[in-house]
């Protein structure tokens, strides 16, 4: 804030003096805290995203090795050589988990991107369009919220004949509702601003206003919402695959790994379920961390609180 006040200074010297005074009063502590805070947050975001990228790459590389069976190491409990243990076919659980995570993240990425795009378009249309359009979009949101997510996912996945497209389309089609509400509220807020009124008076078309002013205004919040969609997408992908509607059982998806481990729970092979689940939680928390930190960078207000 102090920097902004200074760059605007030449416009109004009197106001500048006043602003300078008040900011100077707070400056030494708050400014330094803010910048260091921002640095920490930025490092958090980049670090979390880097780890996730690493998981994707490592998981893709590990996929062939993850499907290798070796009966010599059948049912091995966790050890240094196999940190997550081995399953009943002698497959290394660490590699399988890594492959599963990368699969989940990639599907989550695809589905969340489509979902976020839908919400950007629908939210903007609702807020910028006529009352009827707004009503229609709002109604559509209510409709989507009316069926439990998981039931809708099962229905869509069933309608598409299960498999990869069943999950991906299902998740993409079920997750836009809440973000659409956010985008709509943001656009409505932006629409009130004087610069939109000025642009309108200058004769800019509605499309131009949306492209030049509204979308850039909404974009930071949208990006945060987009990143925070991933955890939902990943968890739902795992859940739906676990139930048997998602990815085909031969793929090392996390849902499949956990669903298979159900059979072996009663024999006491706890590592089959515990470690893949914990790594899934860790991945989701990483996304949450990145999203939360990004939100604080984008939305300075919550950062101050």
């Amino acid at each position, binding site marked *: 804030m102090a920097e902004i006040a200074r760059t605007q200074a030449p416009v109004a010297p009197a106001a500048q003096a006043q602003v300078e005074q008040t900011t100077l009063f707070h400056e030494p502590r708050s400014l330094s805290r803010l910048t260091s805070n921002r640095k920490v947050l930025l490092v958090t975001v980049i670090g979390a995203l880097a780890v996730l990228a690493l998981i994707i790459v490592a998981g893709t590389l590990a996929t062939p090795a993850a499907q290798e069976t070796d009966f010599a190491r059948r049912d091995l409990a966790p050890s240094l050589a196999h940190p997550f243990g081995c399953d009943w076919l002698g497959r290394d659980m660490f590699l399988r988990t890594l492959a599963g995570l990368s699969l989940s993240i990639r599907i989550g990425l695809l589905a969340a991107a489509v979902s976020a795009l839908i919400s950007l378009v629908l939210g903007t249309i609702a807020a910028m369009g006529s009352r009827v359009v707004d009503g229609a979009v709002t109604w559509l949101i209510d409709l989507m*919220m009316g*069926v439990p997510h998981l*039931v809708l996912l099962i229905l869509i996945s069933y309608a598409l004949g299960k498999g990869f497209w069943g999950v991906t389309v299902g998740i993409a089609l079920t997750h836009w509702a809440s*973000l659409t509400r956010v985008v709509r*509220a943001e656009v409505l807020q932006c629409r009130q601003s004087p610069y939109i009124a000025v642009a309108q008076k200058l004769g800019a078309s509605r499309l131009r206003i949306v492209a030049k002013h509204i979308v850039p205004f909404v974009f930071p919040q949208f990006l*945060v919402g987009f990143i925070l*969609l991933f*955890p939902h997408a990943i968890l739902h992908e795992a859940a739906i695959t*676990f139930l048997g509607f998602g990815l085909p059982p031969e793929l090392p998806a996390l849902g499949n790994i956990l669903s298979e481990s159900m059979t072996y729970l009663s024999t006491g092979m706890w590592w089959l379920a515990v470690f893949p689940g914990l790594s899934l939680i860790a991945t989701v*928390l990483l996304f949450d961390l990145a999203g939360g930190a990004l939100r604080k960078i984008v939305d300075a207000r919550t950062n101050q609180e």
Partner: protein
Amino acid sequence: MARYVLFHIAKCVVLLLAVSFLCFALVNASPIDPVQANLGQAAYINMDPEKRAELAAYWGVDAPLWESYANWLGGVVQGDWGISLRYNAPVLQVIAERTANTLMLMAVAWVVSGLLGFALGIAAALHRDGWIDRTIKGYCYLLAATPTFWLAMIFLLCFSVLLPIFPIGFSLPIGVNSSEATLLDALHHLALPAITLSLVGVANIALHTREKTIDVLESDYVRFSRMRGLSPAEALRNGCWRNLLLPALTLQFASISEIFGGSVLVEEVFSYPGLGQAAVTAALGGDVALLAGIAVISAVLVFGGNLAANILYGVIDPRIRRGQSESGKSARGGVGSDVGSARGSRPPRRMNGQRFTEQNEAGGRG
């Protein structure tokens, strides 16, 4: 008031019709042939083509979607929901048998998670930034990141396999007739699924209540109470808890959708014979009639919750009712309602700070 209630009921009925059509269309869009699915492979192959065509006409295979939907809806209204292929019984009967189990599970989870979450949220806000707050917040974030079915599996592993306190599954002891089982048996089997579902539901309501409580604690009237010498806890008890209860109750009603989704997973893990497990079996086995029926029932439950929340809000908070008639815009059920209905007025700033936590939490995770 009557108009307000009627308006919401009418809105729900229209939405319910749309949802039922959506479910029906999705189920029918599936590449699985209903004639074949409803007869079974062997019977289908041994049948002569005339009979097949007759049956295809009966099941409305060639009829346009609208027509078959109308037929189905007519049947549903008259109580004929079709025959479940998997359970070999009328759909309505299968649903009726399982609804009791699911409702019991959901009701326990709903009440326990609501109370526990509310208490934890207030406790966290009262000790803001202290270790209690940090523990509760950390617990909530961790829980929100945990897949429901995995937690259920871990509980099963810990409390049924390693430490055999609770039974491994089902709603009654194996080999015992349902009429002979005691209430204690039923509760014993219900306990672990219900605990799992309750714990998962806590995160959302606790974080939300914490935010609201912090807002209330910063309000002028609490400041005034504090000036009069009351402690924060006393100030809350003296009149603020109503302000907290209302949004919490609304959120809890809106979370029925999530609890149902969670119950599908939990029932599947614990082999608990409820609606969720039946839905999974139906969808895996191509049991179209049962799947559509359960989807509609789940929508009815969710709409019932939203309707209750809306009406409750209207009854308790007269401002909502007035806002309704002035703008013609509805205060939509659920958490996002105050963010969304701000057309024409700038949303309050505090709301902006919260929007992503809401968005993040309200979506419901597997």
